[in-house]
């Protein structure tokens, strides 16, 4: 399983919010800009890719204990949201790339939409 720091390096992501746990391992990925869908489909240790930068992104990531959120298309959370991410230990990874590109790169690195079946 790939770690956050490997993804940060290979996708050239900017780390915002919490930097505390970049050695965390990612079990799978999910992409949607509807937070209600992310709440239903993303799970613990997933990376979530979205262009939304609203404060509720941090709330959802914290609630679900996601490994990280990648915020695409150059969207930047406001200072209050970044501070909240810091407090909640949520890693926000920023990129000017589109969600399509990011998901393609994650897939090439072996991240799938579902966790690998444990053997």
């Amino acid at each position, binding site marked *: 399983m790939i770690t956050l720091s490997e993804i940060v390096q290979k996708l050239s992501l900017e780390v915002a919010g919490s930097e505390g746990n970049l050695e965390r391992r990612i079990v799978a990925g999910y992409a949607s*800009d*509807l*937070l*209600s869908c*992310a*709440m239903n489909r993303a799970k613990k240790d997933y990376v979530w890719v979205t262009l*939304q930068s*609203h*404060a*509720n992104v941090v*709330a*959802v990531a914290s609630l679900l204990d996601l490994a990280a959120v990648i915020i695409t298309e150059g969207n930047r959370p*406001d200072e*209050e949201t970044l501070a909240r991410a810091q407090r909640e230990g949520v890693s926000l990874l920023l990129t000017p790339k589109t969600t399509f590109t990011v998901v393609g790169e994650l897939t090439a690195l072996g991240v799938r939409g579902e966790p690998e079946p444990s053997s």
Partner: protein
Amino acid sequence: MIPPLIVRRACRLGLGIIAVTDHNACANAEAVIRAADGTGLAVLPGMELQTREEVHLLCLFDTVEQCGQWQAEVWRALPPLANREEFFGPQYVVDADGEWVRTEERLLAASAEIGLEQAVARVHALGGLAIPAHVDRPSFSLLANLGMVPANLGADALEVTSRFQPEEGFSQWPELRAWPLVVNGDAHRLSEIQNRTLFKVAAPTVYELSLALRGAEGRKVAVDWHPTQS
């Protein structure tokens, strides 16, 4: 939906206050206000803003001038795209008799580059009311797009659709219990105009409505959850 027919339908339903809230636009509000002149129906000028998050936000004002100021801010925040009538329909501006005045060429079916909380704050600064629209809808809504009511939303109320059933709705979204709720028709056709939300106010103004939504100074708001007729 031309102004005289909107006014006639609203009066027949026994409505005392309506708001005109076109998508990202307020150009038709004044015509409805004029059409209602002398009928006793109060018409608030407004807009259904589509925010950066694609959340629809009802913005209600006392005067056409306030609404026009808000429109100017929204124009600056909308992408400079032309409307495509074959996809989105024609965007007519009409007069009080429903006669064509002009066709808005800029695309109104887009998101303004204004965040939800920022929009609420700006509408308040202009003296208006800000109410996220049809929050229980699966698209273009606060709960679908943002998952939950944001902690620092600052809105005056939340609007639920006429399909909202309190027992199921409050069980699905318990946080809605803490909010003043209103039900409107979100009417795109005359037949969709609803009379479901009762305000106890001294006058049909933004200030009085805001008192009612807060339950202050004896003003009240109540929704008829179980209408006998649809």
